[in-house]
């Protein structure tokens, strides 16, 4: 499970009301998911993406506990045998299959997942990901985050741009324990959509009313605009 604290974090408090909502962020991610992709959505904000994927996009959702073809939450008659990685009762879509754990992670580790979307505590400008532990002295829980981070063909992160205390989550080097090195290719925050490039973060898009300078002031490492 790609569980992170970001899922529980309240939206960052900004001096202004500038910024996208979580639904906006989910819509934005959904727009970039290609037709026919197989996608694993992590716990927290990433699960919201499922609500914005049109059926004609033919996206297959994978849940690492053994479902290929996850459907929405049941409207009635929930079957407690059908749960997702967050242990929520879900449904399966026509054409779905059940798989055991070794096969489910062969799908992940064998490079058969087109995209993994995860929450994170921090992402570094080289694509390093920290999303599994903040303090290794407390009982840690890694789940499938490390497998997804190295196994998925693309790894996108969805998270609030800064912590509740206002500290940047996009950093020069992660302070928290790493989940994987140089794996994140794109980050969707409430303030911007950024690509991870050999030259660091490039802001593809910013929330309406936000200047690059204002975005930079909330980011712990240089952010470039695509034209630079």
């Amino acid at each position: 499970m790609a569980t992170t604290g970001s899922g529980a974090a309240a939206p960052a408090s900004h001096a202004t009301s500038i910024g996208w909502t979580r639904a906006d962020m989910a819509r934005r991610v959904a727009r970039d998911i290609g037709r026919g992709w197989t996608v694993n959505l992590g716990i927290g904000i990433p699960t919201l993406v499922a609500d914005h994927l049109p059926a004609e996009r033919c996206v297959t959702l994978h849940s690492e506990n053994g479902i290929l073809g996850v459907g929405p939450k049941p409207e009635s008659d929930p079957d407690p045998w059908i749960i997702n990685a967050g242990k929520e009762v879900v449904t399966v879509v026509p054409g779905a299959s059940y798989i055991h754990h070794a096969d489910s992670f062969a799908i992940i580790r064998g490079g058969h997942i087109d995209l993994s979307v995860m929450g994170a505590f921090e992402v570094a400008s080289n694509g390093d990901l920290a999303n599994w532990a903040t303090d290794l002295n407390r009982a840690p829980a890694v789940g499938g985050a490390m497998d997804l981070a190295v196994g998925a063909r693309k790894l996108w992160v969805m998270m609030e741009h800064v912590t509740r205390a206002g500290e940047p989550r996009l950093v020069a080097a992660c302070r928290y324990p790493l989940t994987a090195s140089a794996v994140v290719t794109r980050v969707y925050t409430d303030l911007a959509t950024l690509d991870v490039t050999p030259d660091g973060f490039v802001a593809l898009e910013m929330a309406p009313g936000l200047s690059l300078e204002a975005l930079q002031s909330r980011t712990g490492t240089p952010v470039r605009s695509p034209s630079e």
Partner: protein
Amino acid sequence: MLAQCGGYVPLGYRGAGCMTVSAGATDLPPSIGRARFCTDIGEALAGVRDAMSVMIGGFGAVGQPDALIEGLIDTGVTDLTIIANNAGAGRIGLARLLELGRVRRVICSYPRSPGSVVFEELYEAGNIELEIVPQGTLSERMRAAGAGIPAFFTPTAAGTSIAEGKEVRRFNGRECILETALHADLALIEAWHADAAGNLTYRASGRNFNPVMATAAELVVAQVHHVERNGFLNPEAVVTPGLFVDRIIEIGA
């Protein structure tokens, strides 16, 4: 035409009633393979001993062999190593086994989850050992054990704290770490349907770790919801062939 699977039974069987062996246990078909039908939990767990390593199937509560866990508690064995995805929730089942002080070491991917109060208390007090394993590495280590592969390299966890002390090699330009096969003395699993050959099917996401654990342990005990009494499971539908299964107990359905 081979007999069809029985109807769905809601999870209401869990809880106090889960120890009840079904009334039909006396009409079990004669076992024809390695697997033997047991008529009570004590028989299913005969021979368990202190200091065993025990794989326990399930992902959260789904596919978890609750009756066998309760039975394991009742045997009184201690100093166990538990290999499972989670480390129990609430104060029942696996959490109760931990709370009773019967577990020396836990090998799992996600010990801290909602309700895992017992594990967290034990861990923070230094009263339990934890080996944290990424979920895919955990299932692959079991698969390797079952397939006779002593160790394998994987990029999962390379460069992280989990890689500390592990051999590192680069393959195709990518850093990988050496992970070893994970065997157990005993696997407790839950399946949906069994037949007289010991073949098993599972239900929905209750499959999870159960089939791979069945390949990786010396003694494999399955609690099943239904035993097929009118023939055999469709060979096309069998997930775990009976050769992996030692003992089967049908739980009240």
